[in-house]
């Protein structure tokens, strides 16, 4: 069964600290995505990737970096975390434009 695993599931970080959110997929999908979900905004795309070594900016990339070292792994990096980045982050993978996108269970990040 298709699986997307995010770690950690919960994280408390201090303002100005570095945060790395990890995502692993066993679907062998080329495309991977990082979203954040906030009340009133639905899902907003931060970064995405077409395959190992590629990262692309989504709709709200400022303050975030992404890394795709392999087909399976896609990380989201907050170099200098701010309280405005407190949110729930979802990783997802997909095979193509008309195929299902599979989501992880989310990471709840609180920046204090």
């Amino acid at each position, binding site marked *: 069964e298709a699986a997307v695993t995010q770690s950690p599931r919960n994280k408390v970080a201090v303002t100005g600290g570095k945060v790395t959110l990890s995502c692993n997929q066993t679907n062998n999908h080329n*495309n991977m995505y990082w979203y954040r979900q906030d009340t009133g905004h*639905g899902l907003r795309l931060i970064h995405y990737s077409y395959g190992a070594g590629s990262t692309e900016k989504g709709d709200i990339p400022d303050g975030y970096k992404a890394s795709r070292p392999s087909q399976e792994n896609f990380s989201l990096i907050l170099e200098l975390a701010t309280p405005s980045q407190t949110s729930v982050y979802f990783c997802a993978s997909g095979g193509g*434009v*008309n195929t299902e996108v599979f989501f992880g269970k989310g990471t709840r990040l609180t920046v204090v």
Partner: protein
Amino acid sequence: AQSVTQPDARVTVSEGASLQLRCKYSYSGTPYLFWYVQYQRQGLQLLLKYYSGDPVVQGVNGFEAEFSKSDSSFHLRKASVHWSDSAVYFCAASGSNYQLIWGSGTKLIIKP
């Protein structure tokens, strides 16, 4: 610009009643359209998708959706809701670059 609009942030229905959740899209050409469901503190799961053919598509758990090109809509329906259908429902359309364009979500509340 391509967009997906879910005009109802919250819908309340009684258990056993019928349901319609509205979705309107703005897209040049024929989009791929999706409905996803998010149960509390979970990732999103695919309910159904549409690209071509019969405008009424069947999904999991008794859900169906009807595509209307003239109305630019893709409304979700269920004949009889169950308390376990309580969740947030997202409509999405395929965009360029294998990205999905998301609606803001509709929270479904089931009254006993």
